[in-house]
């Protein structure tokens, strides 16, 4: 899965242009997620009202927005947990709206998803939680699985908690286990719902580093929902601000900072 030569080539994007032109299609710079005209309502509450976004391989998009604007809903649409009312979602150049469940499940193996509340399987230990996708989708032996689980847990600083049950972990620890689980299959697309919420500044920093490192190593396309502007600034190539069902502004951090739009500057003002 992991190609070492890619790790060097897919370094930090400086230009926004594909840094690894000779790599296989679908990698480096190819659009991994394309959203077009997404609409989603619950009853007569309109949550998403025409979302257009593109995320390329090797790129991280930070999704900002006030609480309740539909950021989590947007991530769930992308992984097919909910269906949009209208619009199109392309994952690796495949339309997923209306895709049969088997084909969707094939795509999902290449996607990692961190839920806002971690959603760990509470009848399984931390180790079994992370081994779940490995057991289901790889032919790894028990030993290889254990090694991989330990490696993943070490990545999020949780290697000591292998045998604990999720209910015995703090919220931030559950979040980190959830992140390790999302990374288990080395996904090409990573969808993270507030990975650093509820974490102290030091751990948040470590998680940010981890995301940056993985992005460089695996050329992942990531969409990270976050309220943490500092973290967004660190990890994201681009930011998108969601408001009243639409992307109000999309650009780099400095582009957002220089925006004259009142809502945008109000949103960024608090922290800076």
């Amino acid at each position, binding site marked *: 899965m992991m190609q070492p030569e890619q790790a060097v080539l897919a370094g930090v*994007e400086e230009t926004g242009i594909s840094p690894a032109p000779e790599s296989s299609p679908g990698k480096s710079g190819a659009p991994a997620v394309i959203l077009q005209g997404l609409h989603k309502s619950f009853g007569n509450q309109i949550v998403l009202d025409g979302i257009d976004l593109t995320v390329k391989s090797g790129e991280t998009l930070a999704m900002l927005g006030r609480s309740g604007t539909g950021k989590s809903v947007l991530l769930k649409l992308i992984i097919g*947990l909910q269906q949009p009312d209208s619009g199109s979602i392309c994952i690796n150049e495949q339309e997923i709206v209306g895709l049969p469940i088997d084909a969707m499940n094939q795509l999902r193996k290449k996607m990692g998803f961190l*839920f806002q509340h971690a959603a760990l*399987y*509470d009848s399984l230990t931390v180790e079994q939680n992370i081994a779940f996708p490995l057991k289901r989708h790889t032919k790894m032996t028990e030993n290889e699985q254990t090694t991989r689980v330990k490696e993943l847990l070490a990545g999020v600083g949780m290697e000591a908690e292998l045998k604990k049950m999720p209910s015995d972990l703090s919220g931030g620890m559950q979040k980190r286990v959830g992140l390790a689980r999302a990374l288990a299959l080395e996904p090409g697309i990573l969808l993270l719902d507030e990975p650093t919420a509820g974490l102290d500044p030091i751990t948040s920093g470590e998680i940010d580093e981890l995301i940056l490192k993985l992005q460089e190593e695996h050329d992942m396309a990531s969409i990270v929902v976050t309220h943490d502007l500092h973290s967004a600034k660190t990890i994201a190539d681009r930011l998108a601000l969601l408001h009243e069902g639409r992307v109000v*502004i999309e650009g780099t951090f*400095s582009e957002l900072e220089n925006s004259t739009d009142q809502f945008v500057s109000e949103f960024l003002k608090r922290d800076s």
Partner: protein
Amino acid sequence: MVTHNIRIHRHSIRPAVVQTTPPLPSALRSVGNLLNSFLEWFGELGLFVWQVMRAAVRRPFEGRELLRQLDELGSKSMPLIALAGAAIGAVLALETRSSLVRFGAKSMLPAAIVFSIIHETGPVVTGLVVSGRVGAGIGAELGSMKVTEQIDAIEASGVNPYKFLAFTRIVACILVLPLLTVAADFCGVMVGWISSTLVEPISFLKFINQGLAGTSFSDFLAPTFRTAVFGLIIGTIGCFQGMRTQGGTEGVGRSATSSVVLSSLLVILADVILVKLILVFFP
């Protein structure tokens, strides 16, 4: 720095949605609502069954999870079922004796006990006890998995929850109920004999011979395998109620309760229908 276009979208003000419900007498409306939600429930159930059946014919077959469920739903129900079987054996022995003595048909006692247990009491009591234990268990487990997004997490990791969670549990219920019924029958007959022999000594062999006199194997087979249908009902209702849970902890409680209530009711209903059918096919 990455050069990207900054896009600014201005948002228009949306007109408020106007609710237009024609005025109806409130009693009529509540009956209408009830009917509506029943039809909705039924439709959803149909859709759920369809999803499970579609998932069932695809690989992988989830053998390991099925085994786990057989243990969870089957082996762990055994003590309760044995106890319930024993209780009906004792009650039948005591109750039937006094009636039969009154009609001077005391020699019919073993036959009355064995026939009643194998034919009706054993299967139905097993069905109801399992409805309580397993129905509530499945409803609450899947319900809390639903409200904590664990079912979504299973789906997000590319595993079909209708197969991994629902299909395995339903199949486990179908397989386990006939076995549990046999266990209940066995305990019932044993305790029936013990209770009888305590009042008036009779050897076990004689008791069994008298009890089974005039019955054929199909007398045992049809009622026992009828409980596979109970298993289908209990598993399906439990999984369905669990997986459609909404509204937090309270919703989990509602799902557990409603799976017990609905599966018990449907087990009784199915029993009536199946008894009639069995009488038609095995007169």
